[in-house]
């Protein structure tokens, strides 16, 4: 088995995540084709958004891109490795290393502190407690929450909880951050803060992919993918400083 890993030396843009002819069908008697023969490459360093009305297949695609689900047909490649052929343990390891998640409802573990939540992403990776704590604190610093490391989610505002979730997503230094409606549960001020953080997180090694209804969030990306009825109907480049579209 080929072990997937991030490219050691960047010789040019690398594909971090790729969907190849992916379809996802739900149901046994009544079949619902939520995603229909979709192909998409996500390149290191690009910032893309996926938009579309309800039922267009955005969430299904996010689940597949995040390797939280497997396609009925087609392949999902993470750093070139087809994860549909991997066992759960290897697939989970790859997910933990390559992908960071930010959810609309934050999904922090309520009994853990901000630091504990970020550290959760660094468990079982062979790090010492000191290393784990250091990396988690560094991630909290990146989102400006190092002073509130010992607060539990209930003691934090919605915006702060989302920033902790972002810190958790980037603490493992993933190749791609997948964000599901990251500003959906926030007021406009906190939403602007979160968008600014996403802007700041951009780097040549890391892709950012947001799934959203919000056009202002979608237009902040450099590449916008529109979906309808389980298919990609447009793939636009909003700016041309870097990145490659399909």
């Amino acid at each position, binding site marked *: 088995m080929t072990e997937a890993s991030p490219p050691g030396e960047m010789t040019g843009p690398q594909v971090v995540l790729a969907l190849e002819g992916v379809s996802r069908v739900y149901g046994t008697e009544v079949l619902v084709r939520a995603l229909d023969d979709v192909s998409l490459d996500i390149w290191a360093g690009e910032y893309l958004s996926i938009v579309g009305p309800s039922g267009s297949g955005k969430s299904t695609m996010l689940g597949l891109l995040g390797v939280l689900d497997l396609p009925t047909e087609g392949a999902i490649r993470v750093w070139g490795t087809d994860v549909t052929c991997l066992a759960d343990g290897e697939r*989970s390891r790859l997910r933990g290393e390559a992908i960071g*998640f930010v*959810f609309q409802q934050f999904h922090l573990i309520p*009994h853990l502190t901000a630091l504990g939540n970020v550290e959760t992403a660094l468990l079982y990776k062979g790090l010492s407690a000191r290393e784990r704590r250091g990396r988690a604190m560094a991630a909290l610093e990146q989102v400006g929450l190092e002073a509130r490391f010992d607060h539990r989610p209930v003691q934090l505002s919605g915006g702060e909880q989302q920033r902790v979730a972002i810190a958790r997503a980037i603490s493992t230094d993933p190749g791609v951050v997948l964000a599901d409606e990251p500003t959906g549960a926030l007021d406009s001020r906190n939403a602007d803060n979160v968008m600014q953080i996403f802007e700041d997180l951009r780097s040549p090694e890391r892709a950012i992919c947001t799934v959203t209804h919000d056009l202002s969030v979608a237009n902040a990306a450099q590449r916008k993918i529109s979906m309808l009825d389980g298919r990609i109907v447009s793939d636009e480049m909003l700016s041309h400083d870097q990145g490659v579209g399909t």
Partner: protein
Amino acid sequence: MRRFRELVGVAISGLTARKIRTALIMLGPILGVAAIVAAIGINESSKGHLKAKLQELGTDLIVVNASTGMGFGQDPVIEAAAVSRVSRLPDVTAVTGTRQLSDIVTVPFEGAEDYYRAFPVPVIASGLSLPKTLEVPMVSGRFLNDYDRDSGARVAVIGRDLADEYGYLAGEPRTILLNGLEYGVVGVLDWVLLEPSMDSAVFVTFTSAVEDWELDEPDPSRLYVRAPTHTSLVAAEIPTVVSLGGPDGANASVPTDLLDAQSQVDESLNNLTKMMGGLALVVGGVGIANVMSISVIQRSSEIGIRRALGHNRGTIAVQFLFEALVVGVFGGVLGALVGAGVVWGVAEQRGYTMVLSVAGLVAWALVSVGVAVVAGLYPSSKAARLEPLETLRLG
């Protein structure tokens, strides 16, 4: 090892986040182990006490009671001649006959008749070798002797508790009144473990019993026989030796056998309590499985997040299994401590020497761990099977 520490840390943080729930599910193992440890400990301590008592009494004492013969309406007795026949048996080293006398009011001084009529003191006509046969020493003075028997002197020996009740001082010239007749106290007999009623009794000679209380013959109703060897055989032989085929029968028994039987009864009770403790452990295990299954549903979002963060199914299963394990370990240890505390309390209260096996404590704590782990198997496999996409509700 690092992974193990991380798993234990996650399990403990999951349990401490819900302290009351954790305490409640720990109650099962605690009660189960405590019940079993207490049952075994109390029984062992009590058996230890019995063994000490047996050691003190010796296992070679035979008690012979007269059984009803042909003479209806009369108290059964053993004829005096039978006493010497028993004493001539091989292996018998001492024999003493006794007979409790009825309707005698014993008072330590004049004017106390009303009280002692309500609370009568037993008066026992005894052979002269009672201390030797029972192997009980005198606290003070002497026991009844040949001169007392031959002369019919009105002398008495009293039990140790009665001496305390009377405020009798060692060597003090003291008389007591038996139905108004003055008897001189010549000695105090120490506690008789086998016959605690003797501790508050008055002993007189058979001669006094015949002369003062109109006993027809100096016949005892009970014999105490000491046979250091072949005790059981001697006990089996005695009824024949006493009756010689005649109507006056006797029953012989070895009291220490009764104590042994008593310890067997305790063993049955012990087994019953152990079964109840085991049942409590099983019920506790079912409680753990039940509460943890509900917990898996409540924590499905947490499980989904952990899966999204790269924790695989095995890790999730082991995390929940470790939570069950921690419940079992703490429940087992606390249960063992509570059980040991109960044993200590009972031993203190009843004057036993506390007997508790450390290996037993560890073994039962381990049983609790085993029950908890088995109980945690289903919820942990259920947690591992949860699909992260279903618990995270994307979009």
